């Protein structure tokens, strides 16, 4: 028992053994989710009422073994030996064992015996097991294992009281089993593994009477369709299409509401605060910046809802199984497909979803290419450029040039991602193709509580980040555009800056185009951001961009879609401009450089689109990559190589286009 007189109980078990469901049912909503320091292994804790005394329940990561070959295993080992800082050594371990998959689940239990901590086995999936007409002599199994065994069912609360009782007894007795294996000397370095499985086989043989595996027959029938050589892939595509369609369409209403809400909040602050720098900071910096990121919350929640359901039912493992061959050609794991697909909606949940990939190198490779997938924030940029310069044009008279360009931008992202993964896996992240040894769990109905809890956990992590990193960067960007103040703006009307923007281009039609006073653009020109724009002009002019586009580019490093609102400010066409508003389109078409040449040509637009496909212009993604890789050097490397790639590709587009005689 530790000094605070509070018990610490560890929950250990194989993935898919029902550990999370049991954890949720024991702790209720009193959970704390964080990372173990310095790594991305999730640390889950909750309070558990143990007949009067409170215990801290630690949910260890899902494990097949404790040999410390993966980060999860290392952390679990450290927790059990008491070497993990901030976690007191557990007083008892609850070993979660799936009754329908007894032998392999017991392997971990035999390893848990070695830690000299009392073990209580919680037998899950017992109803599924009994439905299959298998029989198990629990007392016999307990005797053979030498530890208490309790059959539990999280849904019906079966065995919950008994589990409490057995854990209390185990803690009180401090009884650890003298566990000894008869190692076969012939076994070489794997002798211990053989001995453990021999012990398990004997114990299972003596306590279980197996019927024919009926559950597997049902799973096999489902699998005959879902992993079919042709239909399996077809169904996978349909499922993914449905998921992404849902993410876009179901999220649009709550996103509009959130966006409207932040607008109202901004207006409220504007009208109730004395005019001045504080109001500007709050409205244009904080509310607009943080709000602009928080509107993505519905998309993120929906994506994780679907991922949880797919994972819980067992389908995710099948999808990785179906696609592993394709992914391994590039050197990636089959599990990388989902994070990459998710990144078409938004790279942030995509990168968060890479946690399912065990190998660090494969995980990093996936993280580093995820932002190439054209996310929803690029859409306003593509749409604006196409509407301005390529609207109504067709190829062969019937294919819309806009659609072709859109497809080309998406394809460019994918091709570059594949190429980069190919190179990374042979250089910086060199590793043999990741082994693919994966359990295909039987299909199960998802546990709604687990699914919802998982979704809420992700959502909270995202909100927390928006409140810290994104808040800071928003303020910096706002300041860059706000300072130094020029004389006109101090006397002029409300200065507004560019961080606020519409996410999906459906902003309210507010201020009419010409009403906005001139000082807005004057202020921008003289601000630090404006000066930066001038400073980088020599670098970006080979790409076809003048300093004004430069300012928009700098601002769009906060978030891509900021380009639209920044261009609106630069060309004085009103703040709530959307990518389809005619005034912004004509302003871009009419914009002139200082020497009178048009600032924009179709080629400039193309070059800009290519730049946006490849450049790392999203502070939220940068923040999440930093968090998930736990390394600034990898994060900066990603920003660096993506920017270089974007520059080169944009340069080739513009200069190549000019050589071919386009303007």
């Amino acid at each position, binding site marked *: 028992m530790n000094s605070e007189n509070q018990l610490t109980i560890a929950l250990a078990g194989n993935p898919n053994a029902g550990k999370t469901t049991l954890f949720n049912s024991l702790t209720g909503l009193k959970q704390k989710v964080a990372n173990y320091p310095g790594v991305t292994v999730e640390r889950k804790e909750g309070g558990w009422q143990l007949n009067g005394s409170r215990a801290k329940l630690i949910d260890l990561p899902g494990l*097949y*073994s404790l*040999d410390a*070959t993966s980060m999860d295993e290392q952390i679990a080992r450290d927790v059990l030996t008491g070497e993990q800082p901030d976690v007191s050594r557990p007083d008892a371990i609850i070993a979660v064992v799936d009754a*329908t*998959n*007894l*032998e*392999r689940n017991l*392997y971990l239990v035999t390893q848990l015996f070695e830690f000299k901590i009392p073990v209580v086995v919680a037998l899950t999936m017992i109803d599924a097991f009994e439905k299959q007409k298998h029989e198990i002599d629990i007392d016999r199994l307990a005797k053979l294992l030498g530890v208490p065994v309790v059959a539990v069912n999280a849904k019906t609360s079966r065995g919950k009281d008994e589990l409490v009782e057995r854990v209390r007894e185990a803690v009180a007795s401090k009884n650890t089993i003298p566990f000894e294996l008869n190692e*076969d000397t*012939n*076994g*070489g370095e*794997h002798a211990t*593994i*053989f001995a453990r*499985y*021999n012990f398990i086989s004997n114990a299972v043989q003596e306590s279980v009477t*197996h019927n024919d*595996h009926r559950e*597997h027959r049902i*799973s*096999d029938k489902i*699998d005959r369709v879902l*992993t079919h*050589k*042709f239909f*399996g*892939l077809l169904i996978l595509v349909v499922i993914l299409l449905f998921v992404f369609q849902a993410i876009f369409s179901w999220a649009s209403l709550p996103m509009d509401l959130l966006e409207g809400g932040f607008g109202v909040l901004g207006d409220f602050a504007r009208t109730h605060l004395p005019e001045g720098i504080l109001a500007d900071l709050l409205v244009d910096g904080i509310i607009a910046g943080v709000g602009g990121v928080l509107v993505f919350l519905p998309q993120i929640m929906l994506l994780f809802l679907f991922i949880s359901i797919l994972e819980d039912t067992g389908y995710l*493992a099948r999808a990785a*199984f*179906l696609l*592993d*061959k*394709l992914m*391994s050609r590039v050197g990636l794991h*089959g599990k990388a497909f989902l994070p990459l697909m998710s990144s078409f909606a938004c790279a942030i949940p995509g990168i968060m979803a890479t946690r399912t990939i065990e190998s660090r190198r494969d995980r990093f490779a996936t993280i580093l290419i995820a932002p190439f997938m054209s996310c929803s924030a690029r859409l306003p940029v593509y749409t604006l450029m196409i509407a301005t310069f390529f609207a109504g044009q067709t190829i062969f008279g019937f294919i819309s040039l806009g659609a072709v360009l859109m497809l080309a931008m998406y394809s460019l992202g994918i091709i570059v991602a594949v190429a980069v993964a190919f190179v990374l896996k042979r250089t910086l992240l060199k590793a043999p*193709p990741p*082994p*693919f*040894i*994966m*359990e*295909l*769990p*039987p299909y199960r109905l998802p546990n709604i509580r687990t699914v919802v809890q998982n979704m809420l956990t992700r959502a909270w992590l995202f909100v927390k980040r928006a409140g810290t990193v994104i808040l800071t960067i928003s303020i910096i960007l706002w300041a860059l555009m706000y300072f130094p103040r020029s004389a006109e703006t101090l006397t002029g009307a409300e200065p507004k800056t560019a961080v606020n923007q519409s996410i999906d281009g459906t902003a309210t039609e507010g201020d009419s185009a010409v009403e906005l006073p001139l000082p807005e653009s004057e202020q921008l020109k003289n601000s630090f951001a404006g000066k930066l724009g001038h400073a980088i002009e020599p670098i970006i002019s080979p790409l076809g961009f003048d300093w004004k586009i430069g300012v928009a580019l700098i601002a769009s490093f906060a978030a891509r879609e900021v380009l639209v609102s920044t261009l609106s400010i630069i060309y004085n066409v009103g703040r709530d401009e959307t990518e389809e508003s005619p005034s912004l389109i004509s302003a871009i078409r009419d914009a002139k450089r200082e020497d009178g040449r048009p600032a924009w040509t179709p080629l400039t637009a193309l070059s800009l689109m290519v730049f946006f496909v490849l450049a790392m212009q999203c502070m939220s993604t940068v923040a999440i990559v930093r968090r998930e890789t736990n390394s600034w050097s990898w994060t900066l490397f990603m920003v660096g190589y993506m920017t270089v790639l974007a520059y080169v590709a944009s340069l080739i587009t513009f200069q190549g286009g000019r050589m071919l005689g386009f303007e």
Partner: protein
Amino acid sequence: MHIPAANAEKNMINRTDDNKQTTLTELPVGQVARVTSVTGFGPVTRRLMEMGVVPGVSVMVIKAAPFGDPIEIRLRGYSLAMRKNEADTIEVQF
């Protein structure tokens, strides 16, 4: 590295001449076989064994993925997917 089978299995191997020795990759779909040894080394082999692929266990190939790789096998009452690279190191007999 070669891992000898447990004694009981050794006796069984020598018992008749009908037994066919092959690797898991070559094992026909649906055919039940017994693992005789796992050649190979390092963490991948270790993981295979921790997942229960040890000499003496019976296995069956369920199917191959759309592009022929990976394959799904059944052992100890559960399904395990692995690439042919890994399956090549598992010797079976039926």
